[in-house]
């Protein structure tokens, strides 16, 4: 069975209603406008980046911290660590709660990896963001509301698929993450109009499946 959803597992969701100034500063928040923090760990970093961005569209929060862990969820430091720690900050607990609700909803119902082969030993993340929020738009140097294809796969698959995606659609490269990244995946962010982003993501997923089926095209 290929291209089946691999749903992310949210490992923890915690809040700090009134965080200490030192914590706020250390995690990139601004004590003059942030009071409360919301923290999430999850076993899929890229789904979480997308979900953090989604949260900025639903509540006036800032994503102050989001970092993937080395070697990914299979080599986590503890059963709650997963692959990423995301931190959102807001002026009050209610705002953060609103943001967390959007974040969890996105992780449970939208963003996820897909299996590229039988047994899901290879995973691909061919995600299309219809309309960027404030977090990823800033990371990508795009405008909020732009469309973006957020494409992730293991190194060899990602490289072949990156090429296929660029050739399949009228898209522009925003940022390429060549291997090894922290989780040892590789990624590409492409932008263009929505239908072109969709075409790029589809070509990307198809190429990953193709490489998974035929790792050798030599001899």
């Amino acid at each position, binding site marked *: 069975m290929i291209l089946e959803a691999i749903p992310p597992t949210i490992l923890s969701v915690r809040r700090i209603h009134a965080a200490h100034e030192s914590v706020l500063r250390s995690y990139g928040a601004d004590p003059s406008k942030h009071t409360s923090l919301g923290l999430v760990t999850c076993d899929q970093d890229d789904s979480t980046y997308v979900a953090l961005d989604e949260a900025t569209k639903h509540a006036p929060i800032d994503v102050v911290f989001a970092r993937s862990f080395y070697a990914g969820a299979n080599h986590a430091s503890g059963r709650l660590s997963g692959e990423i720690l995301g931190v959102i900050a807001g002026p*009050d607990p209610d705002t953060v709660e609103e943001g967390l609700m959007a974040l969890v909803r996105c992780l449970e119902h939208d963003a996820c990896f897909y299996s590229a082969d039988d047994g899901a030993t290879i995973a691909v993340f061919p995600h299309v963001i219809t309309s960027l929020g404030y977090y990823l738009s800033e990371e990508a140097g795009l405008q909020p509301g732009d469309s973006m294809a957020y494409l992730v796969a293991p190194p060899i698959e990602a490289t072949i698929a990156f090429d296929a995606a660029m050739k399949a659609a009228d898209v522009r490269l925003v940022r390429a993450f060549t291997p090894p990244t922290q989780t040892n995946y590789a990624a590409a962010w492409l932008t263009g109009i929505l239908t072109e982003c969709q075409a790029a993501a589809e070509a990307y997923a198809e190429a990953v499946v193709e490489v998974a089926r035929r790792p050798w095209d030599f001899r």
Partner: protein
Amino acid sequence: MSTTRKLIEALRERLGQADPLPSPPAIPRIQAPPTRVFPTARTRSCYAEQAAAHTAAILGIGHVGTRYATDVVLQFQAELAVAHDAVHTVLPDDWAQSQGLLPLKSRVEDHHQFLLRPDLGRRLDEESLERLRGNAIQDVDIQPILADGLSAVATMGSGIRLLETFSNECRFRGWTVGTPMCAKYARVWLQDEIGETVGARVACILLGERPGLGTGDGLSAYMVYEPRMGKTDSDRNMISNIHARGIVPELAGRQLAMMAGAMLDQKTSGVSLDLSGLTAELGQAASGGYREPQRRVRLVETDR
């Protein structure tokens, strides 16, 4: 279903995986925002509650995070809209005639000017002055004047009822009552010129009062003994909040007649008028003491 899921499903079919994907978990229904207006137990303060019992102002409404609850905002906007509507309503030119009243107009040219130039609203224009001299009964005891003031809505709403009640109460007491008239673009002090022209002993102007939140239909009545140009506010007595939720027009008409009686007896009005004998009848209008709070009418219906 998300954009990505749809796209992957199509690709999957194209790659020969005909069996459908297991359906994704349904997106849960997003809960409707709470409809509660007044504070939850957590944010309710007994101070705000006690304060709210003494005023029609919007007090003790709680908060949602750093914001007002949605229905409080809706309520505020609805009430503000009522006030705006009332301020911007213009009394139709033919309204006075259609009600059988003598039509008068101040020196104001249009509604915009009326709002910006109170001085012009205190004088009659030439045409009205002539009409007043020619058509109005002269040398009367009481001259009631209906006017638009700051809320034509109020005038057209309960103005006639107040005018008739007041006039009837005066006739019942044996006084001569002047020609019923209606002044457009009128300020309170217009009663001085009108009263002086018809030679009235007491002039009483009934006009729409400045609209507040949720109250665009309030009338006020100002009365002066021996109206002359140059009388000031200290020469006047007034009753305000004449509307269904405040003093009803029928009661206000009777109270005004009693006040007029006191003026005729004491031959004065305003600060020097002694209303202490009428406290029981006039209630709050006769004293500067405690006033019963108005009942706040909710324009936006909510569960509480």
